[in-house]
């Protein structure tokens, strides 16, 4: 079971992107659109309805939060379903196939055999027929979901609900009483399946599928399908797919006998400037033992040289750009993690060591909201993030207010004690999360629209979740700015922070302002948690990794200065991204710490020193 889940998790399109995005520039992965069919949603609803259909959202939330162990098991099954929804798109394309046309149907019928040679021949025949409708059958074969019965009917099993349907006629088939066998799936068959699926897929109607197929072909083109590639290239309307196809074609043409075609291919590559073809071009410039070029034609060699330098230029540019973009992305994560602290520590001067745990609560709230959507409104699953944002703000804000009223307000005059008490709170919160949700990381599935990737330019693509986090960071900064400068609460907060006694004398209830400030800061931390839940693992120790970083951001930016925190977070992100390739991630972080400590020596007030009377205490 564990292995299968791992396998599935790795196969899931978003996952590889996500991990790649931490290490460096990533490749555009295949992404499948979500159009989970309504009838499957109702199946879930019926299944879950037996034990939860009458409870409303609030009780559901309470259930999730309060019922330790049952909550966790419920959460687990919900997680799996969330995953299934996210995978939905892939199976939806299976369901789309209604019967198969004459020749394709005939060849698919030949799959009903126990001989692997016959299966292989049938696959090759399907490749020749070139009908994209045969794709679901081939994919079912690849996943071991293809069966045939005693009447030699070829049956496809639905990945989601295990129902069977006839591959040729498209009719549903009752499983009862059938003697099912699987066609053999040996390694040679697997090997021949992949390219065939790929080349059929480039004719698919769905752009995402075509892109995935073209990606595969650009990496491993096969000489045999060159004519089909050229056909596909002519029909192709999508820019990215046709670029990939041109790479595949050019790569094949590099080996052509005709020097003219080789030259064309090299020039095409120079125009596309795709770095993955640099290696193939360098081959032309190699010399053999006698010092003669392996490539006889001088024009081709010159073109190759020009193309290589063009590619290298592009590579440099894209490296610079991607470092910058990744730095910004990392910086905005830091910013989201630190903004809440910038309010609580920056404005109230309360050292809140439980800040990391507020992030964690925000992330777990996202998890609970996700599961509530799966259980109660699977058809709206894609929008759970939208609901998670206010939910996380309110839940963490409430936790913050409880902390402030219960403990912190008694300690305002004693900052060091506040530090220790909030550390104690953080331990309790961490252990509470562990008790409710288990010590393992919980699985958060990004909604479909949040798990693809966005290509900024060739070679620089960023997963959508990273882009989303950057945008979300701006949103949260805007929110904080609005809260602080455009609301009565903000006015009172600033008044109390500047001169507590005077504000109190003017009728501001300083005590209450403290409470709301702390609540708002905690709520903003919760928003940071929502963002983190989409890009890092969510577990009880989530917050621990961010606490020191957050303090560094706030101290560097200047305590009490939110704009300073924004600058320092983004600056730290970009700086460490440029440092990382030279020193490695860990050393980069240590160097940054040292740099910050030295910087504070030089400018104790942070980047932007406050000016005026309130600056020095």
């Amino acid at each position, binding site marked *: 079971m564990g292995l299968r889940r791992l396998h599935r998790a790795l196969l899931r399109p978003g996952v590889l992107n996500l991990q790649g995005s931490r290490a460096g520039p990533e490749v555009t992965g295949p992404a499948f659109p979500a159009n989970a069919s309504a009838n499957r949603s109702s199946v879930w609803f019926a299944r879950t309805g037996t034990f939860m259909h009458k409870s409303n959202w609030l009780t559901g939330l309470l259930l999730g939060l309060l019922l330790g162990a049952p909550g966790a098991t419920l959460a687990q099954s919900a997680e799996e379903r969330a995953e299934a929804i996210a995978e939905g798109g892939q199976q939806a394309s299976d369901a789309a196939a209604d019967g198969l046309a004459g020749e394709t149907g005939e060849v698919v019928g030949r799959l009903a055999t126990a001989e692997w040679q016959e299966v292989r021949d049938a696959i090759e025949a399907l490749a020749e027929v070139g009908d994209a409708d045969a794709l679901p059958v081939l994919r079912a074969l690849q996943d071991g979901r293809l069966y045939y019965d005693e009447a030699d009917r070829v049956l496809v099993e639905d990945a989601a609900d295990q129902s069977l349907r006839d591959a040729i006629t498209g009719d549903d088939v009752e499983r009862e009483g059938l003697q099912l066998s699987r066609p053999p799936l040996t390694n040679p068959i697997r090997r021949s399946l992949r390219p065939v699926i790929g080349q059929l897929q480039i004719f698919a109607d769905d752009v995402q599928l075509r892109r995935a197929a073209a990606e595969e072909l650009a990496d491993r083109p096969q000489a045999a399908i060159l004519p089909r590639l050229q056909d596909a290239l002519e029909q192709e309307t999508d820019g990215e797919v046709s670029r990939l196809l041109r790479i595949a074609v050019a790569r094949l043409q590099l080996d052509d006998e005709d020097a003219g075609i080789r030259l064309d291919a090299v020039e095409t590559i120079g125009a596309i400037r795709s770095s993955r073809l640099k290696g193939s071009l360098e081959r032309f410039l190699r010399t053999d033992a006698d010092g003669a070029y392996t490539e006889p034609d001088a024009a081709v060699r010159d073109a190759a040289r020009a193309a290589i330098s063009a590619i290298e230029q592009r590579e440099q540019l894209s490296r610079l750009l991607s470092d910058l973009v990744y730095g910004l992305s990392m910086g905005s994560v830091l910013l989201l993690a630190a903004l809440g602290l910038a309010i609580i520590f920056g404005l109230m001067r309360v*050292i809140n*060591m439980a800040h990391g745990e507020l992030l964690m609560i925000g992330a777990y709230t996202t998890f609970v909201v996700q599961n509530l959507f799966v259980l109660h409104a699977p058809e709206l699953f894609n929008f759970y993030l939208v609901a998670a944002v206010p939910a996380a703000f309110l839940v963490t804000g409430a936790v913050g207010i409880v902390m402030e009223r219960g*403990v912190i307000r*008694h*300690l305002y005059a*004693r*900052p*060091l*004690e*506040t*530090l*220790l*008490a909030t*550390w*104690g*709170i*953080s*331990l*309790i919160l*961490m*252990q*509470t999360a*562990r*008790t409710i949700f288990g010590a393992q990381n919980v699985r958060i599935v990004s909604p479909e629209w949040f798990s693809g990737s966005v290509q900024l330019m060739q070679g620089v693509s960023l997963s959508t979740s990273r882009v989303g986090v950057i945008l979300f960071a701006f949103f949260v900064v805007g929110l904080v700015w609005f809260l602080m400068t455009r609301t009565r609460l903000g006015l009172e907060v600033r008044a109390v922070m500047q001169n507590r006694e005077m504000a109190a004398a003017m009728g501001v209830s300083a005590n209450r302002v403290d409470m709301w400030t702390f609540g708002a800061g905690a709520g903003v931390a919760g928003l940071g948690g929502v963002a983190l839940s989409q890009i890092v693992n969510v577990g009880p120790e989530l917050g*621990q990794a961010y*606490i*020191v970083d957050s*303090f*560094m951001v706030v*101290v560097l930016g200047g305590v009490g200065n939110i704009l300073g925190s924004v600058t320092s977070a983004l600056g730290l992100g970009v700086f460490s991204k440029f440092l990382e390739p030279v020193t*490695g991630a*860990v*050393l980069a*972080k*240590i160097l940054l*710490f*040292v740099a*910050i*400590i*030295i910087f*504070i*020596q030089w400018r*104790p007030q942070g980047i932007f020193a406050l000016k005026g009377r309130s600056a020095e205490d």
Partner: protein
Amino acid sequence: MAQARINRIAGLHGPAGWLLFLLAVAAVLVLMPVLNRVVSPESIFHVPNWMLTLTGRFLCLALVALALDLIWGYTGILSLGHGAFFALGGYVMGMHLTRNSYADGGVPNFIQFLGVSEWPWFWVPFQWFWFTALMILLVPGVLAFLFGFFAFRSRVRGVYFAIITQALTFGMMLLFFRTETGVGGDTGLTNFQTLLGFSVRDADTRLALYLVSALAVIGGYLACRYIVTSKLGRVLTAIRDAESRVRFTGYNPLRYKLFVWTLSAMLCGVAGALYVPQTGVINPGEMAPAQSIEMAVWVALGGRGTLVGALAGAGIVNGMKSYVTAVHPDLWLFFLGALFIIVTLFLPRGVVGLFQRVRGEGGRS
């Protein structure tokens, strides 16, 4: 009156207190070994070897608490980075132990993974014990001196200082987690064989380590007591209570703070060096910020500003930790968390303060 006041600040005592002190020393130095060695294993008074080693480890932690109390309780500087000094002392000792466990010319795996078959240069001198002993004091001491010099010079105080010390230990932890640093990466140093030619697993060596730890704590206590009751100690207390006023009176707080800060780090280094052979392992986890904060709660629970309180706090918290993690491992963090909150809210002067209140001689000073 003044003398009585100093005594109270020091958490010390008149003749009766000295008697108690001697009794405690006797219990630790004589009674425990006797119960371990002379009393037969069947007797309920017998102290098994594991308990002796456990007590030895607690004594090392008590020394850390003393060191932290010196800097926090008396000078008012909260350090959340003492785990780094403790671990550095431990690493120095661990390097000596590892170096001599491979005396036949081999090198441990983590060095082979770096692609070399010989000890890196910085490992070489650790084969000598005298060098190791020097380094146990110097490595934490020099680091603390440099760090303290820059921090105190620019008058980083209070919570800001606490946070940068936390960043210090966090950064050190990251550094030591790297395999390339050459001290064992995330597994740290373990599999120690011999110390000064004796097997570290031997019961006799264990007993000797216990006794050395006990002597270190007693020595540390007396040294700290000497400092806090001296004129120097009064300046430290003055810095804690009103640093600006001390400066205006003509003292330069930098020197005093730097001295006591460095001394405190060295004491931690000694504690770490004695701790490691008794646990048999040192890894970067000891530098985790959480470890250092936990140290602060030992002192806070016992009662900061009293040396006895620091010792008692270390004993109480670690004793509870051993018990609770053995019986209800899930509850320990709740327990520790609640301890932090309760101590800060209701026991600002710790357990010692509680006693003083009961005896009616406490009150706000």
